[in-house]
């Protein structure tokens, strides 16, 4: 049996009509049916250990406790540290690495009664938009197995789309939960920068990335965000704020919601993407939402080069730690320099190496001002434009310029691959929250819409997202 939303599962568990153990067995049935075709997990935890955990949660419930995610099955992206399972970040470089600690988000999931079932596939070190750049295997989109599920959190999204978990954690550096959400008819939220702890996240680009909740409904995403958000003394970049309470946000009166659609957030998208989003916005307008098309983010066309310059510079710096000393993967050579070079050359995949080279270039003497410092100036201009607009309205736009590509269609040309992120990187540069929800289907393929609000306005996005679900009827859909 497949259950549409985590909220419905939780209701069953709290009412006693469904036990965590029964629910875990249902999830395993889905995994056995779908996983050989989809390949969304890198590591599936031992079934007996997962069932033991389900029994633990059951005894908590018998003791009268009501942890907020009691008995819900969660899939965790493989760049989030778990001391009970390998954490590879989709890379050969980290094969065999079992962290000695759990990420703060993982600790919070466990304290909330969640059952972690496995670690999901991803583009190596989160560098990619299709999940084809995993060192292990590509993940397939459950809606069309010839197509990609998006990336880099494509494993988490694909698993949700076939019912292999109730909730999932991804990470979003430039659209890595929103693209997969759009391609798989699931929901993904990139929270305000600093709202969710990054402690235990294998770093790619620190100033841009956030661990991000994913699910099959907006309410489920809110439920997960409420558990993982809030200040963490182990992460100096978390905000001085407690956990959010977005799952209890009351439905907003549509007439109080105002949406702006800057043309830069939709220009250049394929006709089916554009028409699906415009149709949805018309329906929201009919519900009473104010929608304005007289809006512009003039610097948005520069967001992609600004983003990639900053992301690659930070990546080059972060990935310098992989030298064969700290982590298990090492290629021994007669001297230190050769050992480091061989370890890095054989441990990293082609795209990661390409990004390190470009990042090193952006930071190296003679280029730093022209690339990295210039990009940081551009980032301020883009950020100020976004914050100026989100003070007045929620920004709407496309998530991806095209429906989910076929496997192999984009990865041969880095420019074509990077272009998939053109609408999503803006939220990461500005640090604002951004929600991707299903907007409709075209030719059997899911298409998404993206909304951005001011920092810490996740509640407003959840209210709008739930209204979108009411209008489209796409809450809890599965492949």
């Amino acid at each position, binding site marked *: 049996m497949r259950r549409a939303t985590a909220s419905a599962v939780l209701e069953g568990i709290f009412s006693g009509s469904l036990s965590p153990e029964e629910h875990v067995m249902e999830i395993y049935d889905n995994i056995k049916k779908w996983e050989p075709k989809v390949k969304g997990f890198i590591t599936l935890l031992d079934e007996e250990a997962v069932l033991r955990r389900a029994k633990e949660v059951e005894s908590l419930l018998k003791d009268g406790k009501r942890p907020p995610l009691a008995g819900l099955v969660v899939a965790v992206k493989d760049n989030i540290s778990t001391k009970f399972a390998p954490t590879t970040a989709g890379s050969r470089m980290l094969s065999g690495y079992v962290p*000695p*600690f759990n990420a703060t988000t993982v600790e919070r999931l466990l304290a909330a009664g969640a059952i972690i079932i496995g670690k999901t596939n991803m583009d190596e070190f989160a560098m990619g938009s299709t999940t084809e750049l995993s060192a292990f295997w590509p993940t397939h989109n459950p809606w069309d197995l010839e197509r990609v599920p998006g990336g880099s959190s494509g494993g988490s999204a694909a698993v949700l789309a076939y019912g292999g978990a109730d909730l999932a954690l991804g990470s979003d550096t430039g659209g890595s939960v929103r693209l997969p959400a759009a391609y798989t008819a699931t929901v993904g939220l990139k929270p305000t*920068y*600093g709202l969710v702890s990054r402690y235990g996240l294998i770093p790619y680009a*620190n*100033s841009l990335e956030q661990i991000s909740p994913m699910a099959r409904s907006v309410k489920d995403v809110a439920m997960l965000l409420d558990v993982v958000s809030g200040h963490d*003394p*182990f*992460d*100096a*970049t*978390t*905000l*001085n*704020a407690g956990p959010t309470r977005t799952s209890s946000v009351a439905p907003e009166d549509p007439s109080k919601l105002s949406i702006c659609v800057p043309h830069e957030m939709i220009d250049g998208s394929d006709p089916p993407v554009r028409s699906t989003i415009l149709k949805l916005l018309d329906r929201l307008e009919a519900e009473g939402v104010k929608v304005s098309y007289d809006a512009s983010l003039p610097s948005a066309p*520069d967001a*992609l*080069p*600004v983003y*990639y*310059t900053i992301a690659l510079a930070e990546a*080059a710096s972060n990935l310098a730690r992989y*030298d*064969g*000393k700290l982590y298990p993967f*090492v290629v*021994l050579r007669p001297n230190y*320099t050769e*050992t480091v*070079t*061989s370890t*890095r*050359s054989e441990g*990293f995949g*082609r795209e990661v*190496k*390409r990004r390190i*080279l*470009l990042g*090193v*270039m*952006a930071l*190296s003497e003679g280029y730093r001002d*022209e*690339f990295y*410092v*210039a*990009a*940081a*100036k*551009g*980032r*301020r201009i883009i*950020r100020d434009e976004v914050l100026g607009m989100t003070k007045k309205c929620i920004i709407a736009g496309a998530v991806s310029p095209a429906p989910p590509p076929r496997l192999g269609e984009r990865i041969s040309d*880095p*420019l074509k691959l*990077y272009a998939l992120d053109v609408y999503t990187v803006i939220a990461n540069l500005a*640090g604002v929250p951004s929600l991707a929800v299903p907007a409709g289907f075209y030719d059997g393929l899911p298409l998404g819409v993206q909304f951005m609000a001011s*920092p*810490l306005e996740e509640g407003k996005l959840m209210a709008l997202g739930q209204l979108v679900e009411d209008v489209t009827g796409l809450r809890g859909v599965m492949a």
Partner: protein
Amino acid sequence: MLSNFGECEDRDFEELIRLLKLSRLSFDKGELEGLCNDIKNVRALLLRVSKYKDLRVDPLYNVWDKTLNPPDEVAERRVEISWLSDDRLKNNMVKVPWRGG
């Protein structure tokens, strides 16, 4: 003349070799031509940011600025040798493989 690398000129190839050395990376010989072209193309995309170079605005290195609360202090953080598995240790010290550890 170093070699003929497709659309890549000698100076592009020299630049690639410099970056490979700085990054402590190597590629198979057969991959270098494609890599050189890719780097050249992506570099051209990134170069679009140079228009901001001379603008009189402060670079924004992270989104803290004045928009969000300043971050709190980090708790004391320690790495303990007991966290490492036995195969990474020798005489209660971390093994360094290329020093014969």
